[in-house]
């Protein structure tokens, strides 16, 4: 292609990408702009893009609003997220090690089953999971009394406990990473008298830090974005996660206090965006790995 043709095509490409980006960024800007408006400004026609006067106090208001307990919801969400992330990282890496580095009979079949479970979405198991938790509660209550430490329903356990048994997707991700670590490393350690657990803890895990970061990140986002899980397993308003709290808030004030609703939405987005800008590489690498590579 000649020089002029290349210039023209680059120009078209830039124009196209700028249009795409403008369209994609618009909802963000609109959310941000609305979140800084006074209530009368939200109903103005034509709407103004730059709030005047602007009202950053909206962000304070959502922390003291009688229908939205931002601090409580954030605390609940962070608690579930922390327990999920820790559980996922620990157990998924243990299981991934077994699949990646130990040759044992039946491994192929078990691994195939595990991959298959990635394709089973939560709505398919949610009904019976709920029943199983209820059944467990009835039996533990008979032995240990009501409200014992094994109580599932009414607590956060149904949301984070399964993570402590590994998650298929993350196991797969880690396994893909573990198999790229040279075998010679484990062999050398084994000759030095290192046990299998020692190899896992001292050789593989330190090398796998980038992959573990991807898993931690994804499992955090999974909890932060989850709506259906809390919807099914959480009933009491003081246990609401941010997602549930925001939905309840919208049910109460939707159609009127759009500025506060948008401020709360921005608040929900902030940790995710922050994580992204701090760990961009981890994100991109993680997603690229999932694409069957």
């Amino acid at each position, binding site marked *: 292609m000649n020089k002029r043709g290349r210039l023209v095509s*680059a120009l078209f*490409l*830039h124009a196209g*990408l700028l249009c*795409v*980006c403008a369209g*994609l*960024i618009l909802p*963000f800007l609109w959310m941000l702009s*609305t979140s800084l408006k006074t209530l009368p400004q939200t109903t103005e026609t034509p*709407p103004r893009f730059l709030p005047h006067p602007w009202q950053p106090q909206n962000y304070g208001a959502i922390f003291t609003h009688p229908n939205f307990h931002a601090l409580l919801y954030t605390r609940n969400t962070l608690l579930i997220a922390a327990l999920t992330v820790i559980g996922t990282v620990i*157990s998924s890496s243990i*299981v991934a*090690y*077994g699949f990646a580095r*130990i*040759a*044992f*009979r039946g*491994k192929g079949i*078990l691994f195939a089953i*595990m991959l298959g479970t990635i*394709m*089973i*979405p*939560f*709505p*398919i*198991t949610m*009904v*019976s999971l*709920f*029943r*199983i938790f209820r059944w467990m509660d009835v039996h533990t209550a008979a032995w240990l009394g009501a409200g014992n430490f094994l109580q599932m329903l009414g607590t956060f356990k149904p949301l984070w406990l*399964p993570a402590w*048994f*590994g998650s*298929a997707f993350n196991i797969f991700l880690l396994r893909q990473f573990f198999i790229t670590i040279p075998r010679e490393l484990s062999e050398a350690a084994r000759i030095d008298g290192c046990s*299998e657990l020692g190899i896992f803890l001292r050789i593989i895990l330190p090398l796998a830090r980038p992959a573990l970061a991807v898993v931690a990140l994804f499992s955090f*986002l999974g909890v932060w*974005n989850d*709506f*259906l899980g809390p*919807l099914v397993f959480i009933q009491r308003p003081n246990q609401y996660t941010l*997602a549930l709290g*925001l*939905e309840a808030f*919208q049910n109460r004030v*939707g159609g009127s206090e*759009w500025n506060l*609703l*948008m401020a709360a*939405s921005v608040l*929900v987005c902030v940790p*995710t965006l922050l994580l992204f800008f701090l760990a961009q590489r981890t*994100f991109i690498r993680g997603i*690229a790995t999932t*694409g*069957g*590579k």
Partner: protein
Amino acid sequence: MNHERRNFFKGIAFVSPWLIGFIVFTAVPIVLSLYYSFCDYALTNPHRGPYWIGLDNYRQLLHDALFWKSLVNTLYYAAMALPAGLLVSLGFALMLNADIRGQAFYRTIIFLPSLIPAIASAMVWLWMFNGRLGLFNYLLGKVHLPPVNWLGERWAMPSLALMSLWGVGNTVVIYLAGLQDVPTALYEAAHIDGAGPFRRLFAVTIPILTPVIFFNLVMAIIATFSILTVPYIMTQGGPNNATYFYTMFNYDQAFRFLHMGYASALAWIQLLITLFFTAIAFWSARKWVHYE
């Protein structure tokens, strides 16, 4: 103890967390829901457990207008959102893959919306779709077009499909990773043979990208058939059940009306439908997916 047996116990020990979790949280629930799906099991009556009724739940489903409505709705949405999402994200990835300045900036902007939690994007779009005060109708008015009732009975589904395109960033990144694997030698060879940009796209890029397209297709099928959050928040299935999705029907039967047996039958049908479409994807893959 011989070597093979020792390895077997070691291997099982390492994978046992998953194995136990799989049995308790996946296998038992699926088998149990198969059993419940043949039972009358209403939680409204705490003294009566599941009561075997054979195929009655499935028979009832066939005559349940809401079942068909939610199934057709989900297929209608899938027919719009699935191909549109795959094509749009492929288009974005191809544009991003070109060697131009500011690529990292464009990539970040395209990826960002896919990070927004579903609850927050539902709020923003609800606000933009608002009939009287929403941004979209204002912009339409600017170019002298009549306002659209975005979340009304007729337009709600296309609106939700349109909105789903906001979150294609994830898929774009997977495509991009695939595009970077295309050997440059192939492009050069095509170039020497005098192939133009379109020819190169259809004869080189897309064939090599087919495994990635296939992966994205399967993931999209699974996600599309279990969609719930966004319509649940934005339209609650309305107006007049126009956006009543299959998963919402399942959720309502289980946790609103406490018809556990009926809901279990719904879950199983969803499993079979997802498997059916995934199987079609896999079967057709032999004809269009090229593995090196």
